[in-house]
């Protein structure tokens, strides 16, 4: 038998042999054969496919009478004998053999040999095909991941790198992407005369297209804001810019406000975004103004409204990822809980921490975040006395014993305040325990990781904020210490820290920003626990 090399491959698989590939060969020496391997595609509806699915064994190409483009191609390649490669009853390719060098017909022995060869080669070829399919799949998955990474990069690149420094105002912002990157964004735009543009928006859809639209919206908005000032005009301009180019079925909701920090005056317009919430003087309201989302229809106009944010007022801009989050029963988080937390007052970072804490408790930890969550909080400094200030701010290395230093400095900072001796001791113990937790659980007693302690006070309360570097990890809820279980050895004798802290202070707040985990110990300056307990 003359050199009869052949290879065949088909994508086959159980779905459909959509591209059955066959390799055909001129009679060649074995050495040359490898290089000459060619393969071509056989259409799945080619009669040749049906023919070989029903036949076993070698077939003379010239004896076939089929209206088949593949057969014509095989003949053109000089193939004279075809042996189907069948494994597990599935046709996965063809072994194609050229003429014998002697030009004689293949003998019965030749055919048997080829059939044996085909039977043995078929499973191996199938394995090769599967490996190739898997590699293609891995490449495709890699592309999707890469796309997500690109979207994330675009998104992160267009979010503000830092918060604006606004005299008399506190500002905090938070963004948490859902697994598939969405199109949430927020922005602070510095405007003439010390005014500040406030932006929050949400692009429908996810992935790279949404991120691109978000980036475009932000750029147009920034450019328009500088020239046009009036928020309604700005949104109308952005809308007209977006409309021609935005992909179909995609649109952008966006709130835009211009704040004068000196007077608290806020002028705003809203293109269909969730209504920002305001809490001031015990009253709650929302910033309502009508307008269509951006990118749907050109030449839209946007209602402009205005309000003045009084000292002590808080504003929260948020995305639907917050209020439309669901719990296990598919109930929505809603705005009511948000209004309630906002109305409590307190600083913006604490508000965001409380909102996220409430949201996590609501959805349950095991539920995956459905949508991006964006929060921007602003609070106008209240009418508190000038005493509202940071009293001490320091860092400690994570070394056993350093809790004493924290205790000493907090006690010194608290000295001028009217606390009973007993409440002073409680604050000291809570400070020491929270510092130890930070050094041990947050920083793993790694010396180079710091614990930051900040003591501040306003007219109502003294607050000690203690933060560690463990913000990326979720805080595991500790078992409530049970002395009976501890004495019986059913529970570790340890685990008293948080339990003690909770009972030492009037309020305990915890929050994480992804880097740092912060515990805030609050001692009320009027009333408080002594008042309840000791009278």
């Amino acid at each position, binding site marked *: 038998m003359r050199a009869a090399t052949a290879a065949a491959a088909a994508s086959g698989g159980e779905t459909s042999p959509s591209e059955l590939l066959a390799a055909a060969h001129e009679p060649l020496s074995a050495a040359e054969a490898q290089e000459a391997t060619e393969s071509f595609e056989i259409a799945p509806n080619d009669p040749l496919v049906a023919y070989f699915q029903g036949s076993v064994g070698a077939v003379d190409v010239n004896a076939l009478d089929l209206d088949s483009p593949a057969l014509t191609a095989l003949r053109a390649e000089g193939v004279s004998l075809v042996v189907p490669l069948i494994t597990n009853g599935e046709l996965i390719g063809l072994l194609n053999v050229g003429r014998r060098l002697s030009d004689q017909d293949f003998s019965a022995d030749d055919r048997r040999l080829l059939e044996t060869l085909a039977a043995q080669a078929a499973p191996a070829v199938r394995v090769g095909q599967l490996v190739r399919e898997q590699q293609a799949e891995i490449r495709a998955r890699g592309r999707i991941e890469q796309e997500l990474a690109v979207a994330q990069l675009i998104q992160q690149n267009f979010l503000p790198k830092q918060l604006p420094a606004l005299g008399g105002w506190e500002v905090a912002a938070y963004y948490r992407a859902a697994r598939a990157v969405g199109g949430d964004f927020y922005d602070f735009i510095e405007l003439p005369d010390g005014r500040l543009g406030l932006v929050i928006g949400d692009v429908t859809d996810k992935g790279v297209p949404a991120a691109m639209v978000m980036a475009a919206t932000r750029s147009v908005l920034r450019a328009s804001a500088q020239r046009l000032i009036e928020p309604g005009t700005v949104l109308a301009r952005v809308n007209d810019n977006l409309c021609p180019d935005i992909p179909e079925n995609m649109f952008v909701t966006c709130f835009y406000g211009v704040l004068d920090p000196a007077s608290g005056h806020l002028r705003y317009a809203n293109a269909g975004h969730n209504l920002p919430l305001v809490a001031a003087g015990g009253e709650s309201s929302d910033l309502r103004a009508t307008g269509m989302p951006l990118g749907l229809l050109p030449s839209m106009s946007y209602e402009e409204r205005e309000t003045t944010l009084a000292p002590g007022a808080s504003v929260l801009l948020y995305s639907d990822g917050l209020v439309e989050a669901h719990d296990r029963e598919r109930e929505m988080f809603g705005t009511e809980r948000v209004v309630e937390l906002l109305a409590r007052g307190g600083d913006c970072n604490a508000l965001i921490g409380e909102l996220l804490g409430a949201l996590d408790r609501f959805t349950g930890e095991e539920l995956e975040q459905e949508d991006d969550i964006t929060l921007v909080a602003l609070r106008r400094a209240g009418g508190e006395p000038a005493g509202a200030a940071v009293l001490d701010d320091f860092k400690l290395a994570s070394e*056993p014993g350093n809790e004493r*230093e924290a205790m000493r400095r907090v006690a010194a900072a608290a000295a001028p305040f009217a606390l*009973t001796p007993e409440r002073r001791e409680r604050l000291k113990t809570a400070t020491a325990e929270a510092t130890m937790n930070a050094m041990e659980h947050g920083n793993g007693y790694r010396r180079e990781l710091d614990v930051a302690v900040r003591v501040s006070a306003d007219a109502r309360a003294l607050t000690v904020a203690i933060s560690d570097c463990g913000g990326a990890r979720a805080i595991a809820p500790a078992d409530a*210490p049970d*002395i009976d279980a501890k004495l019986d050895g059913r529970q*570790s004798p340890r685990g008293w820290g948080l339990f003690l802290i909770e009972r030492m202070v009037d309020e305990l707040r915890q929050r994480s920003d992804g880097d740092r985990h912060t515990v805030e110990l609050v001692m009320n300056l009027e009333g408080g626990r002594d008042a309840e307990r000791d009278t």
Partner: protein
Amino acid sequence: MPNVTLEATTHAADGRARIELRGDIDSSAREALGAAYAETAGAHEVLLDFAAVDYINSTGIALIVGMLARARADARAITARGLSRHYREIFEITRLSDFMTILDDDRTDQGDPTHE
């Protein structure tokens, strides 16, 4: 500062023992407390004297829980004296006070001890 330790001295006689504690009860107190307790062998009453203790943290509480567990196994009654008002409160919050007798005495550095 991390090496501040506890001095614990045991005085034992006639089935009674008194452990005089001086300093801070934190993680560094483990050995001193263990050794002091070991010297109470044979006593059925052990008095812990906290009069010269300035600081007890949660790790210290855990060590005292450990000592209470051993005392229970050894059928030794534990009494505490000299606790500041603050630490007496902590012993009550943690319910350590359910497993030891806490003597009201004259330590007055934390407000008025007769208040309660």
